[in-house]
């Protein structure tokens, strides 16, 4: 560690402030007491779907498509999850099944 403890704490506090600003700003700009503009309510309805899509892509963003195993373990595991979910439609079964398949693939196959 190159900083003093105080500098370390100040750095962390700066990160906390930045992070919390991103979480609290929408609620400060559109307080409970006032109805938000219609377009914000519209965003509130469509964004959850879009953000889940973004999170899926975000979680897979470092998959090597062009090099290495070409993302085959990820692809196979994701297809397993889709198949399991269409079959049983049980969130825990789909998540556990996909994760186990992925772990077996990266540890034993690829």
């Amino acid at each position, binding site marked *: *560690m*190159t*900083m003093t403890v105080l500098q*370390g704490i*100040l*750095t*962390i506090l*700066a*990160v*906390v*402030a*930045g*992070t*919390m600003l*991103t*979480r*609290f*700003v*929408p*609620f400060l700009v559109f307080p*409970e007491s006032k109805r938000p503009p219609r377009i*914000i*309510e*519209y*965003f*509130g*309805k*469509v*964004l*959850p*779907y*879009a*953000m*889940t*899509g*973004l*999170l*899926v*892509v*975000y*979680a*897979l*963003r470092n998959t090597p498509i062009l090099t290495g195993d070409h993302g085959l373990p*990820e692809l196979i*595991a*994701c297809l397993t*999850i*889709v198949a399991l*979910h269409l079959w049983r*439609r049980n*969130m*825990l079964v*789909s*998540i*556990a099944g*996909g*994760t186990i398949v992925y*772990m077996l*693939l990266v*540890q034993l196959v690829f």
Partner: protein
Amino acid sequence: MAERGVRIRALKAAFPLTVPIALGFLFLGCSYGMLMGTKGFSFVWPMCMSAFIFAGSMEFVTVNLLLSAFNPLAAFLLALMVNARHLFYGLSMLGRFRGLGWKRPLLIFGMCDETFAVNSSVHVPEGVDRGWLYLWVTLLNQSYWVTGATLGGILGANLPFDTDGLDFVLTAMFLVIFLEQWMGGDTGRRGRISALIGVGVSIACLVLFGSDGFMIPAMAAMIVLFVALRPWLDDLAPAAATDGTVADGTAADGKETAR
């Protein structure tokens, strides 16, 4: 006594939703704590950072910040950029968090990716208090992360079994929540088009801007598209009156009268 029953019912509904997150967070939190340990920090650092920052990727970034020259303004700005997606989480949850009183600031403070994904997609079961359900999901998830980070900092060495690939559990969870939203009948075409926009825009921006810088362009492009498509998306389906904020509003009203 009644209040206690409400809390326990909500906990019973919340816990199963957080099981995959428990696995992922204990593991990832542990690796984060170990990383800090190998860089020479005592477990107090990952413990406090995981409790107060509580934004996974930003905590990994902060380890590097702590090892470079002292520059709190740069740290602040970097945190704003890395976490800009939280702005959209907030906009999405304005309606669902309405009327939750003292729980609201806690819910906002603890809204990481995984907590948002669960709370924004959960169908609150009959007879379960919405506020307590959200709060339990938030608190359980944060406790997994802090426990993992602290344990990792204390252990400081490798785990005794092969965990290669275990972090995929969080990817799997996001994908399953996505599938659930896709198959959930109550939102119909609007939800699916929104989901496709989210995936399509994100992949396009990932290809164009690379894995480190695609989030902010993707969010900007989504807003532009949603504004452009508003005439079609906003009043597709009579759903405008039956889902999302409005439905939650009525649920809250119902609870108020019940008490």
